[in-house]
């Protein structure tokens, strides 16, 4: 250890001694921690290593809580879960080289789903950067396409400014991950306050996101809405990032506008709201996709017209005029032609739509039509006499928690079933990896969500395969007694891959069955946790009720039918109205 270790604050220091400690010049690491505190950060997720030793030493003396995950990927997904639930930046620290590269999947996930993160990576000392030094990786080069912005600190006196800018960039405009690469010598260099240039307000001339909508565009939107016969409000995560759920519900209720959400927009309006026609897209509700196809006016608020939502873009909403409200101008017109573009924050746009009293469109007939369709084409499955179905398990979880829990999912069939059957009552309680579809996301994200909301029930619904990508984080449930409920929808398969192989490759199950699984109960026990295995709905009711209502962490291995498929489905390349499996057979 360096001579710096002697600055360890003594609990029993006299005031004079304290004064001395406080006046002692600070190094970059200490300044960085101070800058984090100024941003109100009280928890970080990370993993130490050589290049961040100064940082960890500074943290040792400091009140910021650090959660040591068991893999850097666990840390970043936890930070994403935390950020989704609280709608503020999650903070991650990793060392240089392998520590930094282990974050890459999570950074990409956060980028594509606009999750605010501030990530610190250690870097080798400035005098050896570029020499292939031990644990050197060009993380700036690697993360340039997957960050909203990144910095490599070149001067210790820039740290406070860079940290302030990073939080500003991550959490404003279209949110996203910002990475700060900190060379080791800089974290140990002595900070000189007189040379630090920290503005009171962050001002970045090249970054001025537009929050307020253009007045004329709003007037055009109002006219289009008044004249519409079959309007649909398409809601994406932008509404959640803008904390605009209340305004959304007020707006659609006032003008009786049917709502369809994206996968990531779930929760922005209660799942059982009468104007909510559910999720659209590849595995969306028949009524939702039909609403889009039949609509004469799509009012897209904060969704980026992702291909999993639109299906064949050339035949998306063929009869509709399109209003697209997005804080990111680059999303407007990117995938779908737009008639009335509105660059704005979702909340500001909704507020200005609400401020204007205008003639409500006559949607009674349209709503009747949609209501009939909703009744006619619900999500469906066919009970199996012998085997438990994944959909039944998720319905059961919904019943037990009353739709009030924070739910995180991994990626695959169980994710789609959870989106279909776990209707969210509240906003910011749905945590899933949408754009990147990152297996291994769901469980660590639940850990982050539970740290964010210690008093909420957090249920992590994961596939047996995806869970195994980050299962080592079980240690955290024990260590922090985090009462996360891990529900494994175990079909002993890469279910979603297997489904595509069944449907499009004549059931050639190439590498999609996983006959050998760990004993998940014993795995839980190995980490000192309670584990259960259930095979039928009677067991499910009893054990899930008990497990979910307990205050402890629990792992439940749910053995479900292997060959169950997610329906309905828009096969890839097809248009939304070309769904298959729309009705119970």
């Amino acid at each position, binding site marked *: 250890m360096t001579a710096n270790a002697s600055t360890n604050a003594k609990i029993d220091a006299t005031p004079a001694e304290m004064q001395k400690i406080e006046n002692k010049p600070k190094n970059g690491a200490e300044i960085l921690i101070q800058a984090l505190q100024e941003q109100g950060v009280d928890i970080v997720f990370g993993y130490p290593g050589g290049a961040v030793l100064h940082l960890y030493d500074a943290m040792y003396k400091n009140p910021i809580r650090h959660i040591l995950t068991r893999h850097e990927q666990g840390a970043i997904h936890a930070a994403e879960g935390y950020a989704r639930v609280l709608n503020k930046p999650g903070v991650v620290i990793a060392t240089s080289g392998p520590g930094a590269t282990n974050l890459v999947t999570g950074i990409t996930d956060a980028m594509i789903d606009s999750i605010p993160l501030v990530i610190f990576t250690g870097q080798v000392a400035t005098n050896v950067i570029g020499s292939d030094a031990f644990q050197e990786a060009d993380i*700036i*080069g690697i993360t*340039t*396409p997957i960050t*909203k*912005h*990144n910095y*490599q600190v*070149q001067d210790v006196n820039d740290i406070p400014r860079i940290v302030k800018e990073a939080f500003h*960039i991550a959490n404003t405009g279209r949110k996203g991950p910002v990475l700060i690469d900190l060379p080791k010598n800089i974290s140990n260099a002595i900070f000189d306050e007189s040379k630090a240039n920290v503005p009171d307000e962050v001002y*970045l*001339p*090249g*970054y001025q996101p537009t929050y307020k909508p253009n007045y004329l565009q709003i007037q055009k939107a109002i006219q289009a809405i008044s004249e519409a016969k079959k309007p649909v409000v398409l809601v994406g995560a932008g509404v959640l990032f803008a904390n605009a759920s209340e305004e959304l519900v007020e707006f659609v209720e006032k003008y009786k506008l049917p709502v369809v959400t994206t996968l990531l927009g779930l929760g922005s309006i209660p799942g059982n709201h009468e104007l909510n026609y559910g999720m659209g897209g590849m595995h969306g509700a028949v009524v939702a996709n039909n609403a889009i196809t039949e609509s004469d006016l799509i009012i897209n608020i904060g969704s980026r017209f992702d291909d999993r939502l639109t299906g064949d873009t050339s035949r998306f909403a063929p009869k509709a005029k399109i209003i697209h409200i997005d804080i*990111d*101008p*680059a999303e407007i*017109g*990117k995938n779908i032609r737009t008639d009335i573009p509105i660059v704005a924050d979702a909340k500001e746009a909704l507020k200005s739509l609400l401020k204007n009293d205008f003639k409500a469109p006559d949607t009674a007939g349209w709503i009747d039509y949609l209501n009939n369709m909703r009744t006619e084409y619900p999500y469906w499955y066919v009970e199996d006499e012998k085997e438990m179905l994944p959909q039944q398990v998720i319905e059961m979880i919904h019943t037990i928690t009353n739709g009030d829990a924070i739910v995180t999912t991994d990626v695959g069939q169980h994710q789609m079933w959870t989106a279909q059957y776990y209707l969210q009552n509240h906003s910011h309680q749905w945590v899933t990896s949408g754009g990147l579809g990152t297996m291994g996301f769901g469980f660590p994200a639940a850990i982050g969500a539970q740290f964010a909301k210690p008093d909420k029930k957090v249920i992590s619904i994961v596939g047996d395969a995806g869970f195994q990508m980050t299962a080592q984080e079980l240690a955290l449930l024990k260590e922090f007694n985090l009462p996360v409920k891990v529900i494994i929808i175990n079909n002993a398969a890469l279910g979603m891959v297997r489904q595509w192989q069944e449907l499009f490759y004549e059931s050639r199950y190439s590498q999609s069955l996983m006959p050998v699984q760990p004993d998940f109960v014993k795995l839980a026990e190995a980490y000192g946790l309670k584990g259960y295995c259930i095979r039928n709905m009677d067991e499910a009711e009893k054990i899930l009720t008990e497990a979910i209502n307990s205050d402890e962490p629990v792992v439940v291995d749910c053995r479900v039918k292997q060959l169950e498929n997610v329906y309905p489905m828009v096969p890839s390349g097809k248009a939304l109205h070309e769904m298959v499996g729309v009705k119970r057979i």
Partner: protein
Amino acid sequence: MKRVITVNVINQSGVLNRVTGLLMKRQFNIESITVGHTEQPNISKMTLVVNIEDDVKLEQLIKQLSKQIDVLKVNDITDKAIVLRELALVKVVSPPNLRLEMNAIVEPFRPQIVDTSKNVVTYQVIGHPDKIDAFIELVRPYGIKELTRTGVTATVREVQQNFYDQPTLSLLK
């Protein structure tokens, strides 16, 4: 279609990488790119010549570039009155018996001879990229030993004709 786009950026390390990486990631086809300082300290200007399929792609390019934190301004100057310039160094085989003839032929392009040896002459030619193309074609039959081009830089003319009176002329093809 070919478009000339200027990008003013904060002169931060990594900004060039961010811009070119973005063009690659979004599959834009760069014909040339030049960068240099401007009259303002800390601000550099890039001039891109890109091949773009349609207006939707063009709009995307401009928006994606504008979105970068260190990008201050993006302008598509293709349809404005502009001065476009490029410099080329062309090393041509030029035996003594042909040299006079060659110099006479290239004269209208007003190249400068910047290096000579017994059998080779190096011309420096400056102008609109079309002019440079023409120059190259002209000397090609003599045998080009080496050719380097700087890529295009551009500036918008002070006086612009009234946009509406003007047929939409593109200075590039």
